[in-house]
């Protein structure tokens, strides 16, 4: 959508020049120019006055619980994810999202189907992917799915499009990893065009051309928020800025100030292309877990993260690094409720972001513990965050 306005802005400039030359009447053009000036975050369904939004996300991993060595069935895992979304809504959490990974130890490959079940089971929580690997999907088909999801959920759906950190989808879905970057850029751009225009004319390398194509159904309000997922480096963040789209920034661990560089790079890139960074929301995404004390939280969550990463990434999480995660300056939100609240508020002050989404179910965490965390979020974390970030 921003591309469209950017283009309009540019067209308006050219037209204004013409107007000056020809001295014509231009009342409707003036309207268009004004429209550009009042672009706000609302088009991404974000109201900064409400303070920092808090969400939950799952990669849809399907891993054994390292404490028991047992793995629940895929059926149970999917039902627990849907149940988690319901509980999140009841606790007042703003947002819930599900990712797709096409390989062993994952179970939400068909993430839009899971999201549809969540849409039906909930009423007000925003729902999204985290992320949709648009590179190996047909953007037309993906848009149809998400637009339908937006209608089922009555205007609550969003798309977060990413390039994949696990690349099992390329072989499985018949794409070459050599085209990793090109595939994403071309298909992401098409996805944005479909969102901005009801009738699309498009030609590219990785898909048959579209001639006066109508992509239906349309989302409830004609378009929906589409974000770009960024893996952490400033170079990757800059690409979201150049594209003029809101950014999701994933962070596993490390000092928050390192991730600030990526957010700065994103906003610089936005400005370099004539966008106003104040119009674009930023969301961060990372580990979250609370228990009575920080030590308790670390004890409960470390085996899940360490064993889960061994299986999905091939390397565990070193204890030395994990221990540093408790530092208030570290971006990993694992600790006592009070420490986690202070960290999130510190990150908000540093990043000036609009949404934080928490990953707390990675690596076979039991549903009881997830429920307990949702209770803590609802009773302690959300009230504090809203109190201090609301305008």
């Amino acid at each position, binding site marked *: 959508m921003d591309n469209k306005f950017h283009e309009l802005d540019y067209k308006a400039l050219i037209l204004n020049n013409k107007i000056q030359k020809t001295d014509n009447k231009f009342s409707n053009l003036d309207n268009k120019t004004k429209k550009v000036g009042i672009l706000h975050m609302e088009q991404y369904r974000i109201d900064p006055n409400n303070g920092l939004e808090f969400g939950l996300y799952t990669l849809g991993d399907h891993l054994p619980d390292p404490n028991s060595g047992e793995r629940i069935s895929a059926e149970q895992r999917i039902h627990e994810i849907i149940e988690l979304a319901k509980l999140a809504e009841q606790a007042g959490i703003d947002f819930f999202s599900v990712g797709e990974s096409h*390989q062993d130890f994952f179970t939400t490959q068909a993430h839009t189907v899971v999201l549809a079940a969540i849409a039906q089971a909930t009423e007000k929580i925003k729902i999204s992917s985290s992320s949709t690997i648009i590179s190996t999907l047909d953007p037309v088909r993906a848009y149809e799915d998400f637009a339908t999801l937006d209608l089922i959920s009555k205007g609550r759906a969003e798309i977060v499009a990413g390039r994949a950190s696990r690349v099992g989808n390329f072989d499985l879905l018949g794409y070459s990893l050599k085209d*990793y970057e090109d595939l994403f850029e071309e298909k992401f751009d098409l996805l944005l065009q479909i969102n901005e225009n009801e009738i699309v004319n498009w030609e590219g390398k990785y898909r048959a051309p579209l001639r006066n194509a109508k992509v239906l159904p349309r989302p409830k309000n004609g378009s929906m928020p589409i974000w770009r997922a960024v893996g952490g480096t400033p170079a990757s963040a800059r690409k979201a800025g150049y594209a003029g789209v809101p950014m999701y920034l994933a962070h596993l661990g490390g000092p928050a100030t390192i991730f600030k560089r990526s957010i700065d790079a994103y906003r610089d890139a936005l400005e370099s292309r004539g966008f106003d960074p104040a119009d674009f929301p930023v969301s961060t995404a990372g580990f979250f877990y609370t228990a009575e004390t920080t*030590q308790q939280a670390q004890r409960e969550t470390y085996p899940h993260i360490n064993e889960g990463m061994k299986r999905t*990434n091939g*390397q565990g999480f*070193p*204890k030395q690094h*994990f*221990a540093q995660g408790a530092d208030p300056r570290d971006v990993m939100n694992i600790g006592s409720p009070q420490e986690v609240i202070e960290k999130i508020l510190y990150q908000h002050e540093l990043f000036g972001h609009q949404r934080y989404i928490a990953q707390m179910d990675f690596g076979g965490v039991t549903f009881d513990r997830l429920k307990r965390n949702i209770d803590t979020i609802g009773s302690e974390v959300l009230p504090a965050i809203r109190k201090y970030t609301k305008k």
Partner: protein
Amino acid sequence: MKIVALSGSRVGSKTRTAIDYTVQVLQDKYPDHDVTLLDLADYDIQFSDGRNYLEYEGDTGYVTKTLMEADAIIIGTPIFQASIPATLKNIFDLLPVNAFRDKVVSMLATAGSPKHYLILENQLKPILSYMKAQIVQSYVFIEEEDFQRKEIINHDVLFRLERLVEDTVVLTETYQRIRDEEDAKYDF
């Protein structure tokens, strides 16, 4: 302890000869340790295309996974064109950036000229440090004249290889013990 002896080239026989002797010493002195020989001449390995090492199949997947599971790696390499061979560099490229974290890596080189002595110091060690290896600082440098028909005839080279094996095992045991003690101090 899992030890992998990696012979890093598809060309020639000297590196393999040196690695074979190294493996033999390992097996004689440390029969309880699990030793695997990986000679890159025996495998059909693709060039790195950037995917996670778990996602390679066939020989490439076997070699990357075997290396990642090792506690210690002894790398044997010839020197070609004043550097390590591309076959060996490709192995590093196939692995994650922190692949050698908590692993001990030691080295031996075979070369046609003594002018190549510092190649390991200047070219291989920086790669290993970048990949977070605990490096056995002394390496064994073996020249053409030390070999005769696929055997090492210089007794000093044999002694040095024996010391390299011992240093590798001692450093691995020591490092693992210290790491375990430190990890046990964390309260999680």
